[in-house]
């Protein structure tokens, strides 16, 4: 959904992110430099107390960030905050839901706050967060 030029959408349509399989974890590790063995080496993950490999929280955040900036086209992302609520097993595919609230104060550019929640296929919340946007030209 493309928002109108002056008002953000009140609700972003839910979206499903990519499945975070082993190939995606390996690709993200290479891309980001996050080569913590809990994401790549099953033996090390188990030694660290996990039942198996776990996904990079930052992979989910990167995908959520990519989706948000597309969904809020025309708005400038100012702050993106994410809480990794629970570890994600390899193969997790998140469904993200988000709501958006607009704000404007006199003499300031329009702003919007997006609150989002990402659940796995079982409905368990794995990631939560908030993003703040404003119309371009208000900072720098």
């Amino acid at each position, binding site marked *: 959904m493309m928002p109108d030029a002056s008002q953000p959408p009140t609700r972003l349509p839910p979206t499903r992110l990519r499945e975070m399989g082993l190939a995606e974890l390996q*690709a*993200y590790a290479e*891309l*980001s*430099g*996050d*080569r*913590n*063995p*809990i994401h790549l080496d099953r033996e*090390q*993950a188990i*030694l*660290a*107390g996990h039942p198996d490999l776990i996904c*990079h*929280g*930052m992979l989910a*955040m*990167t*995908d959520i*960030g*990519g989706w948000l*900036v*597309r969904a809020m086209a025309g708005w*400038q*992302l*100012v*702050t*993106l*905050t*994410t*809480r*990794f609520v629970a*570890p994600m097993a390899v193969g997790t595919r998140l469904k993200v839901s988000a709501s958006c609230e607009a704000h404007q104060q006199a003499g300031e550019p329009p702003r919007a706050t997006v609150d989002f929640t990402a659940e796995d296929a079982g409905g368990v919340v794995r990631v939560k967060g908030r993003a703040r946007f404003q119309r371009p030209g208000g*900072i*720098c």
Partner: protein
Amino acid sequence: MVRFNRGWLALEGHRFRPFQARIARERVVRYLDFLGQLEEDAWRERACDDIGAALPTMPFSLEMEAGVVAEIAALLDIDANRLLHAEQSFTRHGPLRCGDLVAVESRLCDVTWKPASRVCFFGKESRFRVAGRLAVTSRSLYAIRASEEGP
């Protein structure tokens, strides 16, 4: 399980080794490709002119490549695989562009031990500057599950 070390609390305020990193266009393009956003030339050009608008998490990778996690683990004297990433935030103060040389300074801003849940939290704040101009700040919260301190 790692044992809680009361000495961790004294690390609050620790400044990590500053470093500089160049934002390579090729890397930005690979990020966009990973996100499936390489198909639009205009999007790619906008991203290279203001990376934060398209790839808000990319500054994290500069820290990863510089070995920040290994540095935290060494500071705490634990294996890196014991560090859990609990929270992350980025705030854009200005654009980061392809080709920029970014100076990164980080410090351990808070250390909190929660004995009831046996988790120690470590908050790290980072500043990303280009030619002295603040472009991005970030906050990372790491957690370690630990047993009570030994005798």
